């Protein structure tokens, strides 16, 4: 297959295998970030909500996005920071408001560890992706001679995430960036199922990563 045709087929498959996604981002910053030297930013997910828990895959995706978009900024991953600060950022003890960071830093050993890590900002991620309105029917059969599926399934994908930025030195909230992505996934099957998945989580990750990366990079 010549390269042009291969590219065309790849592009067609990519479009065919992805459902349509609409994403929007809203930003509310109280003040600009003021990073200097090799001050670090930590990406954390909120684990205290009994109902909503951000997926590990989302925080890993966001971490990768920020690494590529704000390459000069020292970004510390959630796992590393939680281990370095163990156990003060476990769900039982993690501060729930920016002001409470000051209380935590009153403990000299904790303040010393934060100073060693040179952490300036905490970015708390809260939100998740969900599938709603599942509809349709699909029947699959399997026999020694073979198998196949017939029918169609569809559902709505919705991803809502919010990033709250705290200044750990001042113990103050700096702002919030929120993103929402929606789309409809469809899986038609006439023999072989052809999943057309609306990747709203990925769209949210990219849009939030872009916005946050721009803010961090100044």
């Amino acid at each position, binding site marked *: 297959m010549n390269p042009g045709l291969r590219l065309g087929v790849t592009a067609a498959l990519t479009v065919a295998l992805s459902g349509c996604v609409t994403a929007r981002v809203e930003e509310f910053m109280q003040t600009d970030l003021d990073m200097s030297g090799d001050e670090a930013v930590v990406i954390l997910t909120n684990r205290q909500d009994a109902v909503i828990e951000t997926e*590990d895959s989302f925080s890993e995706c966001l971490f990768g996005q920020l690494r590529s978009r704000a390459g000069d900024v020292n970004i510390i991953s959630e796992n590393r920071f939680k281990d370095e600060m163990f*156990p003060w950022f476990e769900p039982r003890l993690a501060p729930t408001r920016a002001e409470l960071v000051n209380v935590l830093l009153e*403990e000299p*050993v904790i303040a010393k560890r934060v100073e060693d890590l040179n952490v300036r900002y905490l970015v708390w991620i809260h939100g998740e992706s969900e599938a709603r309105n599942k509809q349709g029917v699909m029947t699959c059969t399997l026999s020694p*001679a*073979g198998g196949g599926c017939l029918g169609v399934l569809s559902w709505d994908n919705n991803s809502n995430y919010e990033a709250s930025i705290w200044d750990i030195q001042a113990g103050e909230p700096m702002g919030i960036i929120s993103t929402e992505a929606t789309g409809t996934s469809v899986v038609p099957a006439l023999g072989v199922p052809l999943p057309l998945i609306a990747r709203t989580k990925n769209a949210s990750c990219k849009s939030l990563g872009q916005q946050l990366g721009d803010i961090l990079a100044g």
Partner: protein
Amino acid sequence: MRINRQRPEWQPLRVLCALLAAATVVGCAGTVVIEEEFPEPVVQPLPFSAGIYYSPQFSQYVYTEEEGKLTFELGTKQQAVYDKIFGALFEQTIPVPSPDQDNSSYGVDLVLEPVLEEYAFLSPAETATNFYAVSMKYQIRLYSDQGTIVGYWPFVAYGKDRKRFVNGNQSLGEATTVALRDAAAAMVSQFKGVVEKQQWRAPLPPTEVTSP
């Protein structure tokens, strides 16, 4: 001779079905993996020498479901976590052979014995959520250096983890790891205060000591 002809157009589907079937079997029979390495707690140690006793029931604890479908070893993992916690909480820790004997010759100020009273978990089907939820009910028994039980501190550690498509046991292992980390959080934030106030010197009979 009979020749079996395969219909090539169905080959990928067969492979897919075979893989799914294999994955399902692995998901049912897989092992529960709990994190091996726990970080050192960031805490200012108390100026005490603590004797530490782990009973065989604690250090060799194996979780077994009633039907025997799921069995996994938890004892050494939780002992490793408590070693880290006690090692960080006290200036010195010394293993003692028994908590209810005269341990003054070891030069300890008090003796501690963690007891796992109950390990329980709920699957996503039971909670109607997307999570495995683990609870670990502990009791920290406090003894004087003379071997007299003087108090106990009960607490429950919790952990949860999102269910995975194929291997539910991996989620259970992660949820258990989170619960063990939560146990460390409870010990460092609350139990430290109990010891700091020297509440283990409470009058007999043993009383439940409260967090500060």
